């Protein structure tokens, strides 16, 4: 049986709310494909190996947690950069996306150096951006639904993942959101994104498997409850396909 290995990074700090749904979705969706899914929960003080895993997932946290993580993750800068260049999958949701940029200016105007793998930078505003969004991406034809609750805005985002249909982008004015480079997929969306967007999750699983084995045949399941919930949401909130 094929197998994928997932590292859930800083699981005990980056878990603002509902983030646990994402890792559960990755497991369930891969198991549906008869793929074995092994998840390792890693955090501060663990030695994180950026070669060993197929997928690295990190969720949204409080601002305080974000900076605790930043202090720790900086030690892996070169390894992470190398892993991203090699095409390892990074699925990054919420404010953890900010860590991969050049720097972050916090609420007290202090500048924190980021991993500086990507050229964007973040400013923590004195207001929060809260609300539902509808996005479109080049990855799949179906729309992406989600929720944001953040104080950060990302500037100089040169490789956005999503086009904004409804809601807010990287900044208040921007119509683009998220970041994609090779197999690095990052977005400000929080909570159980991979549960709520089954088409996106299927795309990602397929992509992860193809990355391991080019001949991998993905089985599409169209009648899952996740898809029913997704369609019902579009219907209830008048989001047209």
């Amino acid at each position, binding site marked *: 049986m094929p197998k994928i290995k997932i590292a859930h990074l800083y699981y*005990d700090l980056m878990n603002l*709310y509902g983030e646990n749904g994402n890792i559960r979705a990755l497991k369930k969706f891969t198991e549906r494909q008869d793929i074995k899914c092994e998840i390792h929960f890693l955090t*501060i003080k663990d030695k994180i190996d950026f070669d060993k895993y197929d997928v690295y997932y990190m969720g949204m946290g*409080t601002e*305080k947690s974000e900076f605790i993580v930043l202090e720790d993750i900086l030690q892996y800068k070169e390894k992470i950069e190398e892993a991203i260049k090699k095409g390892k999958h990074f699925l990054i949701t919420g404010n953890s996306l900010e860590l991969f940029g050049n720097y972050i200016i916090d609420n007290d105007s202090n500048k924190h150096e980021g991993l500086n793998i990507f050229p964007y930078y973040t400013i923590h505003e004195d207001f929060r951006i809260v609300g539902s969004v509808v996005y479109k991406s080049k990855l799949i034809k179906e729309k992406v639904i989600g929720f944001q609750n953040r104080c950060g805005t990302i500037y100089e985002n040169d490789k956005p993942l999503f086009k904004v249909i409804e809601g807010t982008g990287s900044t208040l004015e921007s119509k683009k959101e998220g970041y994609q480079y090779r197999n690095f997929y990052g977005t400000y969306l929080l909570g*159980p994104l991979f549960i709520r967007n089954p088409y996106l999750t299927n795309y990602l699983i397929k992509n992860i498997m193809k990355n391991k084995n080019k001949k991998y045949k993905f089985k599409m399941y169209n009648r899952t409850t996740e898809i*029913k919930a997704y369609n019902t949401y579009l219907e209830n909130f008048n989001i047209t396909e």
Partner: protein
Amino acid sequence: MRMLLAIIMCKLANTMSKLIRKKEGSVIGGAVALKIYPKVLSKVKMPKYVIGITGSSGKGSTTELVARILKENNYKVVYNKNGSNVLNAVTTLILENTKLNGKLNADVLLMELDERHMEYSLKHFNLTHMIITNITRDQPPRNAHPEFIQKVIKKVIKDSCHLIINIDDPLVKALTLNHKGKLTTYGLDKNNYSKKYELNNLDGAYCPVCKTKLKYSFYHYGHIGSYSCPKCDFKRTDPDYLAHNINVVKGTIYINKNKVSLPSNFLYSVYFVTAAYTLTNCMGLKSENILKIINDESFKPKRLNIYNFDGRMWQMLASKNENNLSYKQSLDFIINEPGKKTVVLGFDNSSRRYSENDISWIWDIDFEELNHKSIDKIVLIGRFKYDMLTRFEYTDIDKKKIILIDNLETDLIPTLKNKTKGSIYSCVCFDKEIELKKLLQKEGETNAQN
């Protein structure tokens, strides 16, 4: 002069509002008074005790109980009965009870304070006592996250205030680190609800002083429990007021060796009873004078939401959407009730306060708990029923136990009658509860208490 005008206009506006709307006007008077004289609150001569009660949950119940204990002990108490606790409402409350000479006509001003917005009220006057019940995930679109609320509360704490805190919550304890004023703590001893295992989805999981991961000897629920930092001296110290020998199902506890009977069989009632006891004892009330009120059966709330349905009991519990730990206490309650049970769950909107419909919170609720032999069926209703069904598919609960109701009007009652067994417990949002009550009325069922 502006002060006088503001007081008069507040009273007048409220009287008018009550006459026209035939109900208590809770914000209009305050709004009018603040327009006339924005500093009006800072000019009121406050009584000896100005008490604020805040936190993510339990503040309303604590306020009610404190008010009752004080009133029955002959204190003149002014408090926000209807729980309206934003600036306009607090202004109305204060000015409605202020004499024309500017003096608040009471021994105690007692306020349930909204944790998110109390900084606006507390700009104008100081608290003598403040209870902080807990800081948990609660209505995130409005409250962001626990550490955001922690920061907001921190801003209003002054050294002149006697803090009374739930020591079981590290996020609350962290608020007292630099507090130079009086501090009294309360907390719960290990009990049936306490768990030992390692939880990995906690708020405030790292020490606020040295950023080391906290160790827990037990958890009551969520991040509330007995924590200590392995590196520095940040820890849950022994509470000044300890609730011990806790038996939630039987409804009895002891506080510092005094026997107390609980008003309801929920863990949260242990907390609010202990908090109210702690505060009133700190104010100088004798233990026996507090306990005679708490233990008085005639003050126990009636269980109004119990119905007879087809020869079965149906109890309606309020669904605390977007507060996973409060929601969990409803599930705990259901599991601890005797006999077979059918549970009805669902919601149309995440909130009554705002239009945001985020469903992240259902992933933080421990629905796995319903994987229990006493649960016959789980019936899902409401606009987000497929999201709920998805959530249940990620538990180990047998699929055959789960029923989805497509049409509430036509399908729910026959389904409950023909396909489910045992007492019914519904935990649904406010709007859905109204619909359920209508369906019961159609069936000719009445409230069991009537």
